[in-house]
């Protein structure tokens, strides 16, 4: 599959420096400043353009620098590498050969061009096409890719009804998680009476382990805005909100810039492109509540209230913000609209599977060689993503499970690696697409602890309104805590299952209705790990503190005293140069000694069982 790059014509060499959050925190701002300086000093400013772009997706490898038109790919760039890169950009310069080229995670060989990198060349980047190729703070870049053409087409060549029809024929389903057919909402909003309606972009990407919405907003904000404007035209709204988490300051900043620039260009505001359609967009910063990803909670939040969901019906399309018809869709859903308008529903429907059209975007993270954002056509298998794009588990460790859909989703075992990735197949397997988190875990992750982690998350994020979720998640957490502490009993498994089903069916909103999923799927696929914790008091991943112990191997201890110094509770005794010993009564299993013991000695071992077994 050939990857597509953005449509900017590049006559000169262009250096694209990723300024996504991942790369920025890895130091890409410094790289940018230093590269500009170097290029100026070398007198190359005329020939070489340096561009700051949004996320390239391969966050694992940041800071990333791509050189076009050759498509050179430099990863993990350090300031020290910059002079070399700068020199290579001169007309007579040659691509660098070793550092900082990307090294294939499997073979360890350097790869020069991004299209040879398996992380990229197996993807189908449609929605993400501009991410990493344009400067998100420059509307000119976006316009150069043909941006806002679809808006012109929508406003002047299509009626609102035609747009809704096109969305319907495209088969687009909401990419926020549940996969609800997008056109149904559009049509309901369009048909709703009144002229006060709202378009809301749900960018409250709260799933731990998902960050693709953020990448799109940071890398290509105009594609989202444009989708919203077209939606506004289609349903007859005049006002839109982007509800974005306050934890995403960069995304907010870029959106602000984009809205401002689009307004100046006449794409947002009164009489857009001199049509009689007016539409304005405002950013609303969420204040830290996962539940606000639920649409009715999100509405409450914009209205200034606690983000507590309310029963549906009425649906937001009937009675949403301030009781007015409101269209709420996810970032990715809006970002797809321009393709549907530009290239037509048939083109879009050509991608994906029978029931799920278009592409899916995942944040591939965890114990995976190539973590980052990936965009693939619907229907590709988990294996293709994890091994083909993700490069498998680092260090050659065996795959244990993949968690998709975050706290609402489930954990799928190796047997299900050939499951196609789409709304329906994942749901059938007990998990879900969710907002696109895909976390790979290996043998070092305890499945019970992972389930406990998600339930803990749900407990903290439950809004507290309905009893099943407020009390049920906490009850499950108590039980799971007992299990990981070795205090579980076999009947706890039945209770978890029965509670889980009750909570799923009894809860008011999607959060509670899906909160038991991580427990229920792990009970389904990894039941033996629960049983081990309960019966054998054993955590096979050696993660659960109460089920492991540390011991100093007398034959390897040199009495170097490093461990005694780091032990926070003075549980290790032993004179210098004498063999040390851990007092198991005092030990809090923090593992500091285990980490600090110099590898050349490796004198401390982590073992099963809460205590040293007496011989």
């Amino acid at each position, binding site marked *: 599959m050939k990857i597509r790059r953005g449509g900017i014509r590049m006559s000169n060499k262009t250096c694209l420096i990723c300024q996504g*959050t*991942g790369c*920025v*925190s*890895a130091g890409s701002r410094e790289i940018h400043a230093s590269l500009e300086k170097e290029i100026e000093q070398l007198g190359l400013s005329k020939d070489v353009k340096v561009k700051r772009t949004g996320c390239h997706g*391969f*966050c*694992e490898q*940041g800071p990333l620098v791509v050189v076009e038109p050759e498509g050179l790919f430099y990863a993990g760039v350090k300031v020290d590498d910059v002079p070399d890169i700068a020199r290579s950009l001169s007309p007579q310069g040659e691509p660098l050969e070793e550092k900082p080229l990307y090294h294939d995670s499997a073979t360890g060989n350097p790869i020069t061009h991004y299209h040879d990198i398996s992380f990229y060349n197996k993807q189908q980047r449609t929605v993400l096409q501009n991410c990493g190729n344009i400067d998100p703070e420059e509307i000119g870049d976006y316009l150069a890719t043909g941006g806002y053409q679809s808006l012109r087409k929508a406003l002047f060549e299509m009626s609102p009804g035609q747009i809704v029809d096109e969305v319907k024929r495209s088969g687009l389903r909401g990419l926020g998680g549940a996969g609800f057919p997008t056109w149904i909402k559009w049509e309901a909003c369009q048909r709703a009476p009144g002229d006060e309606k709202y378009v809301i972009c749900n960018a409250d*990407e*709260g*799933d*731990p*382990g*998902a*960050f693709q919405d*953020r990448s799109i907003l940071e890398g290509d904000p105009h594609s989202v805005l444009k989708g919203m404007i077209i939606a506004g035209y289609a349903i007859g709204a005049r006002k839109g909100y982007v509800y974005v*988490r*306050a*934890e*995403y*300051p960069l995304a907010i900043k870029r959106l602000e810039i984009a809205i401002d620039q689009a307004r100046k260009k006449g794409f947002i505001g009164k009489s857009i492109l001199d049509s009689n359609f007016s539409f304005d967009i405002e950013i*609303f*910063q*969420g*204040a*830290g*509540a*996962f539940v606000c990803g639920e649409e009715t909670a999100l509405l409450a*939040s*914009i*209205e*200034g*209230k*606690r*983000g*507590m969901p309310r029963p549906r019906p009425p649906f937001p399309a009937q009675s949403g913000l301030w009781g007015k018809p409101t269209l709420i869709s996810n970032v990715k859903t809006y970002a797809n609209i321009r393709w549907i308008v530009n290239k037509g529903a048939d083109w879009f429907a050509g991608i994906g599977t029978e029931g799920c059209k278009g592409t899916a975007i995942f*944040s591939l*993270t*965890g*114990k995976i060689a190539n*973590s*980052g954002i990936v965009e693939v056509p619907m229907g590709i298998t988990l294996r293709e993503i994890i091994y083909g794009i993700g490069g498998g588990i680092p260090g050659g460790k065996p795959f244990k499970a993949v*968690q998709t859909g*975050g706290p609402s989703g489930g954990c799928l075992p190796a047997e299900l690696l050939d499951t196609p990735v789409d709304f329906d197949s994942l749901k059938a397997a007990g998990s879900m697409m969710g907002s696109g*988190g895909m*976390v790979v*875990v290996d043998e070092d*992750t305890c499945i019970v602890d*992972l389930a406990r*982690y*998600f339930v803990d*998350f749900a407990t903290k*994020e439950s*809004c507290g309104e309905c009893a099943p979720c407020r009390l049920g998640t906490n009850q499950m957490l108590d039980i799971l805590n007992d299990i990981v502490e070795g205090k579980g009993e076999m009947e706890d498994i039945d209770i978890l299952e029965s509670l889980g089903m009750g909570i799923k069916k009894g809860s008011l909103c999607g959060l509670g209705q899906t909160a038991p999923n991580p427990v229920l799927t792990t009970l389904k696929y990894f039941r033996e790990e629960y049983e081990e914790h309960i019966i054998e008091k054993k955590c096979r991943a050696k993660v659960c503190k109460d089920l492991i112990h540390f011991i100093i191997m007398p034959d390897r201890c040199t009495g170097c005293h490093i461990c005694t110094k780091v032990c*926070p509770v003075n549980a290790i005794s032993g004179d210098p140069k004498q063999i040390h010993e851990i007092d198991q009564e005092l030990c809090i299993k*923090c*593992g*500091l000694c285990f*980490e600090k013991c110099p590898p050349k000695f490796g004198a401390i071992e982590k073992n099963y069982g809460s205590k040293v077994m007496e011989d």
Partner: protein
Amino acid sequence: MIKSTADIFSDFKGTEDDLIPVLQKVQENFGYLSQKSMMDVGRFLRIPTSKVWATATFYTQFRLKPIGEKHIMLCRGTACHVKGAPRILDEIELKLGITEGETSSDGKYSLESVACIGACGLAPCILINEDVKGRLTPKLVNKLFEDKERRDQDVE
């Protein structure tokens, strides 16, 4: 510069839906939401103070107590979790002598956790004020807070 609540309010139209943005601005300005400032907000927006309170206590972003100079937010996203965030938390707690949700007595550090900062590629990571620190190990944590030890020694 610290503004008065009246100054902050002058940027808003003063309707109910301003509540969260106003609270955000007030917190940005004062570092936290005092009861006095929440009462001011209620009066400005003509919202009962109990509703201001209900909203302020609902969202994790809002703090009801002053925070330290360095506000450390530990990401508890899934990627971070499976890549050792709990261990990082232990280490920070040990190092700073405060537990999650606390502020050190000298007012230098506050430690909180946050749902996910969306830098999963860099897991495990933390946010110190606005800066993301990624790919953390216990060792790196030690290094990050080295000055803490130095200061403690100065005090001694």
